[in-house]
């Protein structure tokens, strides 16, 4: 364990049982993303993205990154699913039909970028390598010094709040700014229950969403017409 090289040669990720768990989760991730690509109903896509986040969280747990898994489950599967649902309420329920035009060009771009990424992974250190750059320099220093300098068991917290405290303040400022921006962009009329909001693009989207595109055109407009907004406008 102390000698990085011997640890790297002893450790074979593919021989441990957790490897098969990871393989299964990664396979499910691919299946979920393909299902998201093929689905046209946005509600289903949002639900699948929540499932994708939960699978990612499970994958992070398998990688021993519990803090990241925690955040992914809370933010990715919880909050962003709700936010996507509320955003979906403001727009159409269905994705626009696929218009084949630049399919060949897109395929070429995908193949090139994907090939470049796979080529880049050939240079990456093997999984679990103790001599990898991420585990060597500053990371190793945090692991060694955190118990003495901060005396806290959770190294993630010491790095986040103490060693990189200034960075975290920037992150909080980013979240603050996001809340502020949403308040400024969407705030008008919201405190009155949204009744006075007139969104021209949303109306256009609603019309496109009507008959002609979906198999069940009446489903989307079912609860809309008797709403207070219809009476007010």
């Amino acid at each position, binding site marked *: 364990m102390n000698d990085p090289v011997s640890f790297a040669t002893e450790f074979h990720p593919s021989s441990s049982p957790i490897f098969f768990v990871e393989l299964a989760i990664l396979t499910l991730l691919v299946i979920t993303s393909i299902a998201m690509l093929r689905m046209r109903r946005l509600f289903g896509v949002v639900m699948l993205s929540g499932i994708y986040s939960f699978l990612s969280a499970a994958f992070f747990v398998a990688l021993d990154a519990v803090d990241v898994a925690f955040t992914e489950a809370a933010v990715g599967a919880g909050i962003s699913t709700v936010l996507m649902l509320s955003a979906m309420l403001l727009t159409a329920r269905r994705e626009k039909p696929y218009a084949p035009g630049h399919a060949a060009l897109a395929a070429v771009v995908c193949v090139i970028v994907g090939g470049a990424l796979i080529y880049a992974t050939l240079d990456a250190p093997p999984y679990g390598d103790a001599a990898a750059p991420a585990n060597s320099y500053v990371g190793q220093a945090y692991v060694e010094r955190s118990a003495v300098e901060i*005396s806290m068991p*959770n190294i993630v917290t010491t790095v*986040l709040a103490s060693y990189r405290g*200034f960075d975290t*303040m920037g992150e909080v400022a980013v979240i603050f700014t996001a809340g502020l921006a949403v308040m400024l962009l969407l705030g008008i009329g919201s405190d009155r229950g*949204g009744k006075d909001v007139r969104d021209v693009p949303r109306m256009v989207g609603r019309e496109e969403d009507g008959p002609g595109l979906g198999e069940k055109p009446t489903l989307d407009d079912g609860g809309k017409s008797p709403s207070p907004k219809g009476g007010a406008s």
Partner: protein
Amino acid sequence: MMGHLILRVVIKLLFAPILLFGLYVQFHGDYGPGGGFQAGVIFASAFILFALGFGLKETQKHLPPTVLPFFMVFGLLLYALTGVLGLFMGGNFLDYYVLAPDSHHNAGQHIGIILVEFGVGVAVFSAMMTIFYFFAGREPEIHDADW
């Protein structure tokens, strides 16, 4: 929003434990997984769950949207002022050692991290609630047929 009796009962049962778990994640973050970011989101998710079951108006009665900007500013300022406190006590910005210089078990670090993480939690919670309120508040009510 009438109906959904089972959902509402389950939400009522879950609401307090979720808040308790949020507090645990907030203040146990230096010993176990978690911290201000996760705790703020968990806290917000309890209120969002409540809003999904009982409607936005009912939620805003208990947590008015007008108080959220103050929470947001408070969280960010608590973080920044903890840093400035280090400056005033003779250290660097965000230097927690000077908060308890005579401690042999790094009490200053613990105080600083608890304060800073609490600021993060408050800011994240109020920002998430603000974003949710303003997204969900665009529609007067979410009809069942919209799902």
